[in-house]
């Protein structure tokens, strides 16, 4: 077991961060000044701007000392874990932290999802002494995949877990290879990487790390039907760039795979595998033990599997892991419900420009065979300037399963994207006379369309911010 690092003298400064010679010595007076200002800011923000508490104090401290992250003391690389990837890193991080804490370990973390440099700085400002020494045994962080390399250059974690690497936020990332290259450069011979056995890009990262631990989920009752037509699931092999072939898939782009070009393939049995799932009884099996399945969407299984791998490797036994899974509550759940004018509205979260989360949402909706209305809001992409319209990723999704799952009506809303999104369903063969377009982002007409839905059950698929706006408006109208 290594000793905790006291400062980072001798290590190269993080990529993109100014050198210590230009900004002050890590752990020196400038660091302490930045830290104390950050702590003072955190206290004030907590009182006056609590909603900005996850980011702002770190942002202020980093303005004073841009390489602040490298100055903290008492961080043991062997007890430092980074959770990264495209989808599922917040839930996985929260689950791992919960497991460690349930096992009696002290953990500093960024549970609220502030996973960029300033969010991580805020976590450290809040969880260190006045001299910058970590007050917890473990540091477990969700780290934005774009920033992993620079964060790890400042905080040399020896454990990196990668949920998956998929198409996401193309305006920022362009293509998945961009993120793949960033993640693989953050790895090295001193790293244990935890990889998703069934996601090809994640699974291939072992070649860049000193040690590889794989996690996965066996084929289960909600595995997707593989198609051989236009919707055949595949992707370029990360090794040879030929077309990966999936034998089955639990999620879009996640399943048993092999590359006929170079032979790269998922392991028959990963190191940690969920080998049985009973959605109805909310339980799953791993290594001969049965655990509680708190959330019954298929994608949650990979969060549980990742957590099982990390926690087990850290010496947390099955009893403690079971207690953690029993008591876990997800922050900002992906599946929520509310009632509006007699309609039972079930929200299924999706991410912007992310076809896999849209496909998961579609699969969740299609898995329910009751009569329902499908309400979709693909919003304007307002991530960075310029804001723009993008519905192309809806064509990456197989929506045809909805046609046979008793969707009685579809509602598409949004001022800019609703017509193009609706067109996707006409391409799938859904009757045009059962499609309603609400070309607005205002809650009232959207809620009116929900109220007019021909079914009691309504599934709402949109970004979390729009959901919260609609939910708040629905609650207000319900009170009147």
């Amino acid at each position: 077991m290594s000793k905790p690092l006291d400062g980072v003298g001798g290590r190269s400064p993080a990529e993109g961060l100014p050198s210590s010679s230009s900004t002050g010595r890590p752990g020196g007076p400038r660091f302490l000044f930045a830290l104390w200002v950050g702590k003072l800011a955190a206290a004030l923000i907590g009182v006056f701007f609590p909603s900005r508490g996850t980011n702002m104090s770190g942002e202020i401290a980093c303005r004073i000392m841009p390489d602040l992250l490298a100055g903290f003391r008492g961080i043991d690389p062997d007890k430092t874990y980074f959770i990264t990837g495209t989808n599922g890193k917040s839930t996985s991080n929260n689950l791992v932290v919960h497991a460690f804490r349930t096992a009696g370990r002290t953990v500093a973390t960024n549970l609220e999802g502030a996973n960029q440099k300033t969010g991580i700085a805020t976590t450290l400002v809040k969880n260190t002494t006045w001299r910058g020494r970590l007050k917890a045994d473990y540091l477990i962080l969700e780290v934005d995949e774009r920033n992993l390399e620079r964060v790890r250059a400042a905080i040399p974690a020896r454990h990196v877990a990668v949920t998956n690497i998929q198409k996401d936020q193309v305006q920022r990332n362009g293509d998945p290879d961009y993120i793949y290259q960033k993640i693989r450069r953050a790895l090295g011979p001193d790293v244990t990487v935890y990889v998703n056995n069934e996601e090809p890009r994640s699974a291939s990262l072992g070649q860049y790390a000193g040690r590889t631990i794989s996690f996965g989920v066996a084929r289960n009752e909600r595995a997707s039907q593989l198609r051989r037509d236009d919707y055949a699931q595949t992707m370029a092999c990360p090794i040879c760039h030929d077309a990966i072939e999936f034998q089955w898939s639990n999620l879009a782009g996640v399943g048993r795979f092999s590359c006929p070009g170079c032979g790269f393939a998922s392991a028959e049995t990963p190191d940690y595998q969920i080998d049985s799932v009973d959605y109805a009884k909310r339980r799953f099996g791993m290594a001969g033990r049965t655990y509680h399945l708190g959330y019954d969407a298929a994608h949650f299984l990979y969060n549980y599997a990742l957590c099982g791998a990390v926690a087990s490797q850290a010496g947390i036994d099955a009893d403690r892991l079971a207690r953690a899974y029993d008591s876990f509550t997800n922050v900002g759940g992906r599946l929520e419900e509310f009632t509006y004018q007699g309609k039972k509205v079930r929200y299924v979260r999706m991410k912007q420009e992310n076809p896999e989360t849209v496909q998961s949402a579609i699969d969740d909706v299609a898995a329910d065979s009751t009569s329902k209305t499908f309400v979709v809001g693909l919003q304007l992409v307002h991530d960075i300037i310029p804001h723009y319209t993008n519905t192309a990723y809806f064509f990456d999704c197989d929506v045809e399963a909805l046609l046979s799952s008793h969707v009685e009506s579809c509602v598409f809303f949004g001022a800019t994207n609703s017509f193009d999104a609706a067109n996707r369903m006409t391409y799938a063969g859904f009757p045009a006379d059962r499609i309603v377009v609400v070309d607005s982002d205002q809650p009232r007409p959207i809620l009116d369309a929900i109220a007019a839905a021909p079914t009691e059950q309504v599934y709402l698929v949109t970004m979390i911010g729009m959901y919260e706006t609609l939910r708040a408006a629905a609650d207000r109208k319900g009170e009147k």
Partner: protein
Amino acid sequence: MKPTLDITWLYPGILNLHGDRGNVMALRRVAGLMGLDTRVTRVDRLTDEVDFADTDLIVIGAGELAVVPAVVGALSGHAAELGRHIDAGKGLYVSGASVAIVADRTQRIQAPGTGRSSAGAGGSGGGGGSAAVSERSVNDGGSQTTPAGGRFGGSGGDVIEGLGLLHLDVTERDEIYGDDLILQVGRETLVGMQIRMVDLRLGDPSDPAEQPFGRVVYGLGNGSWQIESEGVRRGNAIATNLLGPALVRNPWFTQSYLRDVVIATHPEVELADIPDATWQLERQGAQATRSFVASKRTVPGVIQ
């Protein structure tokens, strides 16, 4: 019996970044409305045998630059045949960065993934953020930066040799640029979006056989040399960064393009007209995009 349009869809599992299957679905749908049957041959693996002899139209979706050398390697034995295909007026439709496959060559930036900045990666939130096209300095031995952050020449990275079907120099951009894109193509206005990974430089803009695909009404064109032009067209071979999928969002163009291809491949066939009312959703979608674009803040270097 209806005439059949033969479409070869190259490597859809590898080249599929932006809902590209939608373009094939649009070709099927529009061709059907025009009175054509379609036969789509999907070529999945790089080692699959491919026969272009009966192909009327080849579709290549948007892919990662990382896969381009492998795809070029798979098709290199067909380069001459593909050249004859284009010269015969048959169709070739290429989206996004896959233009590198059919170009003369592509200059990658040094150490892919390091030089390319994810502009605004810190997250700017709403309308108050900095422009995504903010420039960054690069030590590239004399390269020139375009108004919107791309650059040509001297980057020192790998050079990918393409099939040379379209005479283009392609350069990987330092910054990804994502935005709406509106083009004027002949009498048609085309609406879509762009994720610009590469800049293009047409080999000889005065060559009447090879011209820009469209004039930029809104958005970023091929690069600093041709900022008001987008893509390239030689006969019925088109490479464009208009995404959307473009053939779904602009069925009026899909129709005219198919007509051009059919004239070259099945000149005896009479095609049915499609009532404009068929495209009500698409017209409304295009109008919504144009209205939104008209309200946008100006981004330096972008046609607006």
